[in-house]
């Protein structure tokens, strides 16, 4: 099951400068664990104490995952995941 993951500039040192990588998993937590196998260090940049870090926003098909289960958000083949550092513009 392929999920397209968009990587922000600040994390591209972990992906050989790739803007987009592929991963798999039936939920977001599994996807992050899968990415960690090929891009060591990424899990720690995204998660803290088993949760998404506060200043990282993750979007599933452009929807903020915090509203759809966080790391438990279910994924399907062909979904797009976008990782972004939280910045201005109404972010919490």
């Amino acid at each position, binding site marked *: 099951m392929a999920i397209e993951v968009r990587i922000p500039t600040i994390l591209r040192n972990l992906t050989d400068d790739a803007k987009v990588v592929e991963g798999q998993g039936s939920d977001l937590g599994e996807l992050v664990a899968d990415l960690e196998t090929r891009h060591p260090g990424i899990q720690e940049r995204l998660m803290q104490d088993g949760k998404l870090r506060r200043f990282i926003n993750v979007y599933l098909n452009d929807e*903020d995952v915090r509203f759809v289960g966080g790391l438990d958000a279910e994924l399907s083949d062909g979904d797009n995941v976008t990782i972004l550092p*939280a910045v201005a*513009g*109404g972010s919490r």
Partner: protein
Amino acid sequence: MRYDSLLDSLGGTPLVGLPRLSPSPEVRLWAKLEDRNPTGSVKDRAAFYMIEQAEKDGRLSPGCTILEPTSGNTGISLAMVAKLRGYRMVCVMPENTSAERKQLLAMWGAEVYFSEAAGGSNEAVRVAKEMAAENPDWVMLYQYGNPANARAHYETTGPELLQDLPEITHFVAGLGTTGTLMGVGRYLREHRTDVRIVAAEPRYGELVYGLRNIDEGFVPELYDESVLTTRFSVPSEAALKRTRELLDKEGIFAGISTGGSLHAAMAMARKAERAGERADIAFVIADAGWKYLSTGAYEGSLDEAEERLEGQLWA
């Protein structure tokens, strides 16, 4: 329909079905045509309510100066109401907003001060607050924190939607001052407890983002996350694509932020369809496309338009 004056014609906008973009007869999309307001945007409602309230509170009397940080539409609405009511209008807006907006503001008699593009709306808010401190007799209505902004939608937009679409299941709008979502959201919840309130916020390219940092994060005072069911962050290319789809398939010529709301509305429609649920999804056409013609959003290929839009604020 006959009205005593332009301001009396505010609101009461049409709600139109989108038969070609709706996925099925059970999952339907509806557009609330807010571009049919006096100055052509949803902001007329908030502007009118905020000025009325300030008059009632005794904060505004003829000859007063109104100051507002705005990337365009609110300023245009306020300038129109201010002109009719005898106030001077001063706007602070980011320098990278479209040329048409600047001209429109000037046309309705507003004085415009520009804030640095890099800071976006946040910088405009900061500069306006500074100017307000230097000119204590000026009145800043401050759309981001003025309860009359949300109340305009609680008392008008919300009831209009429920009356036209009693079977409403979702309401989708852009997230800026949050006034539309907070006001309509609260009203609909009181009458349809299961209604889903969906926010679509603009996501700009890294060209705009790269210049900001986390400490500059700005949450409007009106924002109450508990009103929202979910929130979408819509990239420029998706907003552009949907804006064009709306034109191609349904003949509606809307501004780019409306494309963002349509993107979120269509995502919710797809989810409802997958889950086998009935849905009546209403979203807001915040304004028409006229003000954005100079951005090149409607010409040439999508890629070309996207490139032209890079670094510009579209909501």
